[in-house]
């Protein structure tokens, strides 16, 4: 990629970091919330 390589890499890096970052952040948050909900349900039934 000789011409405009830095612009092309910039776009793919930005899209990858933003979309990948969001997916990771939401997945982590979902896992944390599910663990908390499970713990709360166990507390409630005990």
């Amino acid at each position, binding site marked *: 990629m000789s011409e405009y390589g830095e612009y092309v890499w910039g776009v793919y890096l930005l899209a990858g970091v933003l979309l990948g970052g*969001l997916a990771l952040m939401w997945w982590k948050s979902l896992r944390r919330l599910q663990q908390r909900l499970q713990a709360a349900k166990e507390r409630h039934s005990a």
Partner: protein
Amino acid sequence: MKFLAKIQWPLGLLTVLVLGAGLWLVIHAPADYQQGDAVRILYVHVPAAKMSLLSYLFLTVVSGLFLWRRTETLDILAEASVAVGAAFTFITLASGSIWGKPMWGAWWAWDARLTSMLVLLILFMGLMALRNALDNPVKAARATAVLAIIGAVDLPIIHFSVVWWRTLHQPPSFAGASKQAITGDLLPPLLVMSVAFVLLGAYLLVLKSREVSARRQWEALETERLEHGHE
């Protein structure tokens, strides 16, 4: 939400496979005779733009259905689609801007397509701010649904902006009749990347919807616990 939990992993796997195929095609596609390698930016920009509009269209439909049926699942899907749509709209504007610098010689132009797309990003951010600003979740759901439906007027403006006005932005990339539409060897990567972005958008929507649902359940439990604690 159980259905979303079931489809999340197969959808994620399919997204990775199609995205991988799309990126392989992008790497092996020839450079454009005028734009050179900068044409590869369009394989992200055009699918992201399609997903921005598709996300808002989905938001409008679920908002309308929510105002009619008042089902919480529809409001959860609306909240999730705002977050997903905002991300794709930001990528559309940023990638367009990065493409514009070498091709137009400017990062930004107050052109009809660019401006109406910026309005879409402001709408998505406004919807997020409105939901966060209202303490009553029922009022927040109703207000954001109404604003989302009003904001849908921006969709035809974005789509037809390159037809109605003389703009710097080129005509639609998929229009076969247009002289500037993407064709030939440059078309397969664009089509596969478009499918990959639709799958990615659907995956992110599923993930965010499940996260919103779990957060609301947790907040309801916490509220209940605090109320019982004060009794």
